[in-house]
């Protein structure tokens, strides 16, 4: 069911790309194509597959010859195609609480419906959240496959934490070697890390260009971008996608052309977008607003040493804003708000997200102190069943009125 979806998605995008005129926007389609191709690889049953937690080092795994992905990707994909409800019902029918994160419930449901491809092994991460860890444990049991757990410390990138995490990543490499029967090839790993660093440089340019006023990003150009691009790191396709975005944004900025129509109010979006089809972006545009930056579209790590990637990869994980004290997250959000000159921020407060939404009050207070008003939405980013578009529209309108009043008065 899912493999044909990705296959036809990929071929559909390929056709569209082939038919494009030279000056038509192409970056998002290229990105979508790479996601579709990733989907094909994940569900083809032909690749060496690892289901992972969000913070697994995908570029390193690429260099070890493993096709890997964080499980929540499947939840997002199911929601975007309108196929998530039966999965949620399947999980809930088996006793998985509706109080818990929909991404995890959706993947659990897919597992119960035998729609998740069997992995060769799993690599869980204890951050960003407990729910993700439990999901990988459950998948490992269901598929009778070995689980490697990366225990992510919370203090931040101090020496001891970096060393601990780097050692675990080395142990992870040994684990992969044992399970693939192939010794790790330092040259191959180094090449993957180099490509990852190249992509990083390009991403920095992309995000830098995205600060322009008006924003060169069209409505969905950067939707789910940073989070999903991390899956492609290590491959040449990540470099090419990032380069295409850089070139396209550069052209638009040089021409002074805005991506989204009628951008007057500039907004920042926290954590994850609403994955199922919703009138949100349209509603914002109709109200003269646009999301010009997503929290997860930021490069928060330094280049990694291809000759000895482990400490650098450890530091990368430890500096993800969703890891550790919320102060670091608030600091990043303030910086983004300043750099992108936002007028306000939207926090979807994804239902069941203890790690993220658990800090709702602190984040709102922290941003308010920096002069950035926050709209808390309380939506489930995956489950459309309780979504009330009317209520959403009312809240957005009220928020924008508030912003305009502040600007005017």
């Amino acid at each position, binding site marked *: 069911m899912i493999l044909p979806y990705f296959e036809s998605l990929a071929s559909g995008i390929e056709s569209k790309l082939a038919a494009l005129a030279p000056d038509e926007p192409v970056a998002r389609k290229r990105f979508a194509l790479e996601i579709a191709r990733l989907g094909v690889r994940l569900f083809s049953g032909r690749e060496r597959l690892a289901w992972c937690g969000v913070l697994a080092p995908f570029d390193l795994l690429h260099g070890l010859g493993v096709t890997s992905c964080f499980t929540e990707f499947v939840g997002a994909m199911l929601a975007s195609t309108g196929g998530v409800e039966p999965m949620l019902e399947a999980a809930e029918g088996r006793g998985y609480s509706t*109080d818990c994160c929909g991404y995890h419930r959706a993947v659990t449901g897919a597992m119960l419906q035998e729609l998740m491809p069997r992995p060769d092994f799993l690599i869980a991460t204890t951050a960003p959240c407990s729910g993700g860890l439990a999901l990988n444990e*459950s998948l490992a049991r269901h598929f009778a496959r070995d689980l490697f757990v990366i225990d992510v410390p919370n203090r931040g990138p101090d020496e001891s934490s970096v060393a601990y995490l780097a050692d675990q990543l080395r142990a992870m490499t040994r684990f992969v070697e044992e399970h693939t029967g192939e010794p790790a090839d330092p040259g191959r790993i180094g090449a993957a890390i180099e490509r990852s660093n190249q992509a990083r440089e390009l991403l920095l340019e992309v995000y830098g260009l995205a600060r322009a006023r008006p924003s060169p990003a069209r409505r969905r150009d950067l939707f789910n971008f940073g989070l999903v691009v991390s899956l492609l790191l290590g491959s040449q396709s990540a470099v090419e996608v990032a380069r295409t975005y850089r070139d396209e944004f550069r052209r638009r900025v040089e021409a002074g052309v805005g991506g989204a129509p009628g951008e007057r109010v500039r907004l920042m979006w926290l954590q994850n977008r609403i994955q199922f089809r919703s009138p949100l972006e349209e509603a914002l545009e109709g109200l003269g607003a646009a999301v010009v930056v997503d929290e997860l579209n930021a490069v928060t790590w330094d280049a990694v040493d291809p000759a000895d990637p482990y400490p650098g990869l450890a530091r990368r994980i430890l500096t993800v804003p969703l890891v550790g004290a919320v102060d670091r997250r608030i600091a990043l959000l303030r910086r983004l708000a300043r750099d992108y000159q936002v007028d306000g921020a939207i926090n979807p407060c994804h239902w069941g997200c*203890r790690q993220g939404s*658990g800090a709702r009050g*602190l984040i709102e207070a922290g941003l308010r102190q920096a002069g950035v008003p926050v709209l808390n939405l309380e939506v489930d980013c995956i489950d459309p069943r309780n979504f009330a578009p009317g209520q959403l529209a009312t809240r957005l309108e009220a928020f924008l009125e508030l912003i305009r009043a502040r600007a005017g008065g």
Partner: protein
Amino acid sequence: MSERQALAYTCAYTPLPLIHAAGLVPHRLLPTEAQEAPDQAGAHLHDNLCPHVKRVLDRALAGALPDNLAGVVLMGSCDAMRRLADAWRAWRPDDRVFLADLPATTGPEAVSFFADELGRLARVLEEWSGQAPTEDRLAASVELYRSLGAAVERRRRRAARGELHGGWAELQRLLNGAVTGPPEPLLDELQGRGEGAPAARARGTPVYLFGNVMSDPGAFAMLEECGVRVVGDDLCTGSRQLTTLDAGPDPDGGGGLSWLARTTLARPPCARTMIDEAEGLAGRLLARARAAGARGVITHVLKFCDPYLARLPALRDALREAGVPLLVLEGDCTLRSMGQHRTRIEAFVEMLG
């Protein structure tokens, strides 16, 4: 003994002997004493967050904290606890708060990392109290808590046999007292008291309790009213506190902190800890419930507790397969929420026959 300062904590994984060795009195912030504190935590964090964490935060915000408080040690056990640390630091910036990194894995690297973390904690405790938790002091404190754990365990066994006057409610009161005051007088009392007054023959259907936070003695009294006789528990405010740490030197030859790290991570686990055993949480539970002679299991977990909620379906399946009846209750650290379960509990007892 000169007046020692208190050190507040919230998690059963907290290394109490280390705190004690630094000359401080560990004081667990129990959610049950928070009835008077107004509900503010939801606004500062989020409403849909662990009720235990919210009630502890409410206590802190209302200043309902032990007198003479040196500081607070929080364990990074789960997302909610980490948010508690964030909120505490933001809203009570003058308090001294240490958030300890607690590995979710228990292998040698995790132990070594945790030993370093305990070292960091030891230095901070010394700053707060002015007393260094030296190896000798730590050894003495470990011994003290081992004796206390053993004494409480003896009481627990009597309660399980139905021989403790006041039943499991009394045991919980005892346990709550043990973690909210100096351990020495309580140990003397427990050891001096001998067997204590025998209880009337206990009635009720033998049931094993599993879950996390359930610290209100009233909850156990209610269970007894419903016809339950508790014969064992795996709760973090119950038997997972004050466990008797295993004796003997560290096989790796490390000092006290290395040993403390290893034994702490090896304690009976909370669901947030990744267990290596093949059968996992369910297997452990089945074995313990059977050994205790329970006819059924009541699981009491807090709402919004992801580590436990995520494991419930597998637990249910395993117990169903083993023919052990299971009742799952969700609570919010109030007696009211327990009271709403009365019919379920009575029906469960009737079902067990």
